[in-house]
């Protein structure tokens, strides 16, 4: 019986990329420092040596240009680009190519275009990288119809979801939280895929549902474990993909527990947390036994100083407090 290896989140992603590149010559990787450097977080390490500069393309700082290049290449069907946006915070210099071009082409052309492109990018606070390198902007992508938005929380999910994303014929925004890169977990060596649109109940429980994303899944699990000692049973649902969203799994959990806390590192206004709360009050109103609690950062930019940043990021204390308030 094979023992399943433990590898990091970053290694799991690297395996998915390597597998797809080895399988399909149309898959190319582009972005800043993805080649010789191997990606500033090491996710593309080794690919340049293995697949060469034609398929692992180091680009100048021209995000609109190279994301648009990916879109055009995908539209022709000649390539399946995996484009890296070094930080999600940089979406502002290339956003048009994402939400007006990649996201809308298929619809505008009456279903005749396939934009098989993945935009890999990095989100998250916790490293004193300050206001322009620490954001979690998944809600902006999710707002715009036409994009699939993936946000894994474990190495296992990361590998399976990245394989699915690259094989998907629609534009996928694949968001990696920087605090997760070093997290280790069991990951099979062979390739496998996890369908987009399937949430994962990371922990079953019956008193309250926590819906949490990316790094917040781990904090929520920690809180759930703590609360178990007090006899409180918390269910933790990880949507894994923001679009499509597995509404059934979320609603079923709320119907079971009657209580909902949403934990998300995105900004609070018009964010993913409000999205789930609205879903609950629209689709599970009769089951709800308490106000929906939302745990997000405050509506401020991300501060630099560690003292301020740790106050800004949703903490296990704040999550626990929110759960207790509606028990």
């Amino acid at each position, binding site marked *: 019986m094979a023992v399943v290896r433990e590898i990091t989140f970053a290694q799991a992603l690297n395996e998915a990329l390597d597998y797809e590149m080895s399988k399909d010559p149309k898959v*190319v990787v582009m972005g800043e420092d993805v080649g010789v450097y191997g990606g500033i977080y090491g996710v593309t390490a080794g690919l340049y040596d293995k697949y060469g500069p034609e398929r692992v393309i180091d680009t100048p700082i021209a995000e*609109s240009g190279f994301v648009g290049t990916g879109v055009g290449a995908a539209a022709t069907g000649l390539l399946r680009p995996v484009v890296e946006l070094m930080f999600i915070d940089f979406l502002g210099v290339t956003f048009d190519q994402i939400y007006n071009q990649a996201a809308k082409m298929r619809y505008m052309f009456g279903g005749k*275009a396939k934009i098989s492109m993945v935009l890999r990018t990095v989100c998250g606070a916790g490293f004193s990288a300050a206001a322009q390198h620490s954001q979690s902007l998944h809600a902006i992508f999710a707002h715009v119809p036409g994009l699939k938005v993936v946000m894994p929380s474990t190495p296992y999910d990361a590998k399976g979801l990245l394989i699915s994303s690259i094989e998907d014929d629609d534009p996928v925004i694949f968001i990696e939280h920087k605090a997760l890169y070093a997290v280790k977990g069991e990951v099979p060596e062979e390739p496998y895929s996890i369908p987009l*649109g399937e949430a994962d109940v990371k922990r079953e429980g019956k008193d309250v549902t926590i819906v949490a994303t990316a790094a917040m899944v781990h904090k929520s699990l920690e809180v759930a474990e703590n609360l178990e000692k007090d006899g409180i049973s918390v269910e933790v649902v990880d949507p894994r993909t923001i679009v499509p969203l597995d509404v059934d799994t979320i609603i079923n959990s709320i119907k079971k527990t009657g209580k909902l806390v949403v934990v998300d590192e995105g900004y609070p206004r018009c964010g993913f947390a409000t999205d789930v709360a609205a879903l609950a009050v629209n689709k599970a109103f009769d089951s709800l036994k308490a106000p929906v609690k939302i745990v997000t950062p405050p509506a401020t930019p991300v501060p630099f100083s560690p003292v301020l940043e740790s106050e800004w990021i949703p903490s296990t204390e704040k999550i626990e407090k929110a759960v207790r308030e509606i028990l």
Partner: protein
Amino acid sequence: MEEISKEMLLWMYEMMVKIREHEERVAELFAQGKIPGFVHLYVGEEAVAVGVMANLRKEDYITSTHRGHGHYVAKGGDIKASMAELFGKKTGSGKGKGGSMHIADLDVGELGANGIVGGGIPHAVGAGLGIKLNGLDNVAVAFFGDGASNQQNFHEGINLASILKLPVVFVCENNQYQISLSYDKQQTIKSVAERGKAYGIPGVSVDGQDVLAVYEVAKEAIERARRGEGPTLIEAKTYRFRGHFEGDPQVYRSKEEVEWWKKNKDPIKLFEEKLLEKGIVTKEELDSIWEKVKKEIEEAIKFAEESPWPSKEEVLEDVFSTPTKGVLVWQW
């Protein structure tokens, strides 16, 4: 001109006429309220699309603009489908979802008009990358306006094509206006072609009202691209005979200026004169081309008029291509 086959010369003439006739009829249909939305017509600029496209194969790619009908027609796009699209009909190239600013015909390498100025430029670069990595000898041509040459995608796109040495030709249709802003207020240089120097690629300016001049310049650039020698920037000096969009009051330019261009620089008239002067064609041959083209356009209009509207349910279709578990369309 001597080296160009009569067949090709007639093709160019026919295409210019087809674009002209297409646009004049669209203007009428728009005025009659049959075509909704914004339309930006290509009247006066026909020689640019045609002179370039005369050098392209079906497998080559182009990216177009908000002023895209001419590119679509000259690249061989299905004009029934595009006319129906302009009307918003189910049989349209985009099933009525796109309209004038989003017409595309992927089957002939027309990667789409674009409502975002400059938005299509990097798509041509992407097509060029695909061509190169697949070892093909096709090319991609990006069309865009003078206004677009001040936009980010011009800069970022051309530089990328230059460093990756991609088979892409950048064609700036300098019709001297960005809506109301004249070219001399957009840039302090004399020609967009000068910007080639910023990317280490050839920059050539050409009279965009002379289809043969455009043809020659494009031929060289496209052959260069096919040989793997990288991109070229072409500026074609041209002029739009109509408003920026239909309904434009055109307060920013004089009637005299417009009339001067129509009288002295009509690309079809100029080409016609040349063809007749050199005795390559007869007036009758040209007339029969007009007749043929008119019939074609009328058939397309008839097709569009008679086509059904999309059904309301179709609004929800064509967002994603692959079936996925979970909610794709939010329903409250």
